């Protein structure tokens, strides 16, 4: 079954882009292909200078290291690791020697400097999502994906999380692609792309 059809999209470095669209429109599939979580069956795809079409699954995993950060709706922290260990893991996977220190600094930057040794179950939903943001940003990737980052949070907490996400992105200059149903959140981005039935139905700059 063809899920994404004729999508032609160029995202410049440093841009913030919101992906909108009803359920089943192909948002998740597009993000999965762009982030290398799934392989596109045809077409051309270059991410941060790497040709993703020719890479196999393990090469895609290696390509993600240090290049792509991902924030998920349900946080998906590793339950057996502390906040600091969670944040350090992707940098350790990428072979960074200062992973530990950078994890602590990033957690400090998202306001969780006092929660380094806490396990996910000891953190609130908002705190868990901050850890997830720190984990995505700490390796300083040029590209960050966020899938409904506030979907599991109340409005106030969600607002503060988005503030943290946008602030840290601005400070690192990364490209940010957010999947969301929230028009208000989409409006904070530079550009909004709306999908429908596997096609781009609109692509507009936010004024």
């Amino acid at each position, binding site marked *: 079954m063809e899920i994404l059809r004729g999508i032609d999209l160029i995202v410049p470095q440093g841009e913030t882009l919101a992906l909108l669209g009803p359920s089943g429109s192909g948002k998740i599939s597009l993000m999965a292909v762009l982030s290398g*979580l799934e392989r596109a069956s045809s077409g051309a795809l270059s991410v941060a200078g790497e040709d993703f079409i020719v890479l196999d699954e*393990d090469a895609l*995993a290696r390509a993600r*290291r240090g290049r792509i950060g991902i924030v*998920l709706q349900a946080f*998906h922290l*590793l339950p*057996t*690791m502390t906040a600091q260990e969670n944040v350090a893991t992707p940098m350790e996977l990428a*072979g960074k020697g200062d992973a530990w220190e950078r994890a602590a600094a990033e957690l400090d930057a998202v306001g969780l400097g006092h929660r380094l040794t806490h396990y996910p179950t000891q953190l609130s939903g908002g705190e868990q999502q901050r850890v997830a943001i720190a984990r995505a940003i700490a390796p300083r990737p040029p590209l960050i994906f966020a899938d409904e980052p506030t979907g599991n949070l109340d409005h106030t907490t969600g607002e503060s999380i988005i503030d943290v996400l946008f602030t840290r992105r601005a400070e690192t200059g990364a490209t940010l692609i957010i999947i969301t149903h929230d028009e208000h959140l989409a409006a904070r981005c530079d550009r909004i792309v709306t999908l429908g039935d596997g096609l781009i139905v609109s692509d507009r700059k936010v004024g």
Partner: protein
Amino acid sequence: MPWSTAWRIARRDLNGRFQGLRLLLVCLFLGVSALAAIGSLTSAIRGELGQQGQVLLGGDLEVEVWQRALNEEELAFLEQYGTVSPGYRLQAMATTPEVAVPVELKAVDTNYPMYGALTLDGGSTFGAPPPGQAFLAPGAAERLGIGPGEKFTLGTVELMVAGIIEDEPDRLSEGFALGQTVIVALDTPERAGLVVPGSMFQSKTRVAFAGGDDPRDVQDAMEKAFPGSGYDFRTRDRASPGAERFVGRMGEFLTLVGLAALVIAGIGIGGGVNSYLEARRKSIATLKILGATSGDITRIYALQIGIAALVGAGIGVLAGVSVTPILARSLGELLPVNTDLVFDLLALLRAAAFGLLVALVFAAPPLARAREFPAMALMRAGVSPLRREWRLAALPVAGGLIGIAALALVGSPDPLLSAGFLAGAAVLLGVLALLGWAIRKAAAKAPRPANPIVRAALANMHRPGAATGALVTALGFGLAAFVLLAAIQTSLDGNIQRSVPERAPDFFVLDVPKGSLEEFRSLVASVSPEAEITAVPTMRAAVLAFGPEDSMQVVAELEELPEGAWALNGERGITYSETVPDGNVIVEGKWWGANHSGEPLVSIDEDLAAAADLKVGDMITISLLGVERSARIANLRRIDWESLGFNNVFVFSPNAVADAPHNLAATIDLPEGVGTGGLLRDLVSAFPSSSVIEVGPILTEARAILDQVGLAILAAASVAVLAGIAVLLGAIAAARASRTYDTVILRVLGASTRQLLALQFAEFGILALVLAGVSLLMGTGLAWLVITQLFEFDWLPDWSRILAVLGGGLVLVLGFALAASLPLLRARPAQTLRSL
């Protein structure tokens, strides 16, 4: 990712209490500790048997011969190699005015003991007792009711108890005795009138070598120097062949039990690792999102599982070593065994290696699957079914299997049995896997039952991700373990029951002088006129040659005895008779008539004839009290060995052997209700040189020994059952985890507790019923192998008890399944849904 990084992440992710990997830990612990204990124990016993060969034998070489002592030339021959210590062994009656007790008389000279020390109660050590005195085993003193300084009668002499034996160094090599030991000076049997021509005694002459001679060389030289003398030899390296055989057989059985426990544990390990990795799906997907490759995932989780396996195996080895002294102490009365902590590094490494290899074989497939968990699992509920990475698992599984087979075969005293067992286990696993597949298919194809509970239970068996295969394997092995245990136990019970004949004679009387038979009969008749007496002449002879007259085979020239021709080995009891012995049937040839005076004839057992290829008309030459005699085979007999009476492989015509000095052996059957005490005393006082053995207490003792062996076998087999229960629990717990979601949703939809329990009950009930038949076949098949092939007992299972145990096993399975689902039923749906 370098291994160091993988190790860091693995360590972080691994819960300090090994949560999720406990089934693996428990299974490995059980399997490895069983093997470590078995290995340590058998090597402790073997080491002791090997090291103490000289002490156990009481010399470097022992020459045994019946009904005579070695002559001057024979003694002179042995003396050229070192110190010689002659002795006698015979059955005798020790009496006091109150009681008569059969004893095993051991007459020794002043050189005894040449190795080790004879210790008496109180700790002092002695050699042979002075003339007129005796050392008594505690049992003999107890039955006679006497202690040091008191007197008792032996044959025609009165002896004083000089001490009670605490430790007899050569006890084990003496073998089974019908009575307790009494040690006396060498000349005592003769003075007591017990050693006369024809009486049934054995001389044992031991040599302690002065130089470094090889006992086997001396044995060969003596056989050559005195051909056809009918010697039995024992050497220091095989001081107690009976004990060695027992230890070897028991060790082999215990190793099989350990392997069975490990195979069962392997299933638990596979299930445990699978559940563990399934529960970590999200973590694995998260790591992949963060940039971990499939190889990284393999490294991280292989490290975790490897650590858990090492810890499980390590604790297992420690536990195995720690329980060895306890096991050794419980065996201490039967066998020489070091009761300290025994570290047989090789045995321990072997146990650990078995455990780790089994872990590798069973953990590799789920690990190979886990590396393929897709990262997208985090973002979408439904992801495409996983590829089965058989190729990745094939190498470690094949390597592990080869390693297990090599370890089992190289270290096994009976490689064929081990190989057969491993192949059998592999076939069983294959059969169960096939059955699991068939059940899934059948459940999918079965018409939808109207009852929603049964319908849901059937659906649970075949839906995607159903754990039916794992459950079938685990439940199948678990239930088979119960059946195995029951079949072994009831068969052993059956053998014990049968070993006690319904009608056994009340007394065996040995060494009745042949001229005193009438006196003997009238004495018995005076106590009980209706008593039945059977008396047969007894003598011992060794077969020197056999076969057709013109081409007889000399036994000494045989490299190996033909299979089943045990009667050709060493000296055997023989008799002569004018009539066919009671209970025997002539199957070929004719019996000689009364007063036969022609060519000397012999009748032999048909089984021996078949084994040694002997036919009617062939000849046999024997050595009887050192004299060669030949006889022609006149007929073949079928002997009922089950009857507890006088059964002889060789029965001669009277004119062949009756002129040799000999005594009679008799059985006495008393009518019901006649007490045995009076007759025993009268017989002992009238025939002081005869041994009167009361059968009742002997049978009770034999039964007690068999009971002990049965208990040991059962205790060992319980290890396999424990592993089976652990696997059952693990499988049920894993199945429960996969049911959580369904159960909660059904709860939300309004299912009652009773309905949910019925659903669990139906699913496990259907599986258990199907598996009951398979387990019955598997368990009894394996038990048959153990009983008939390993222990060479008869296959006498009690089917009603086996079925009852199987029923109990089924109830246990259902009980566990229901108990495991209870916490789920107590959970509040809303709360549980949030945590899903």
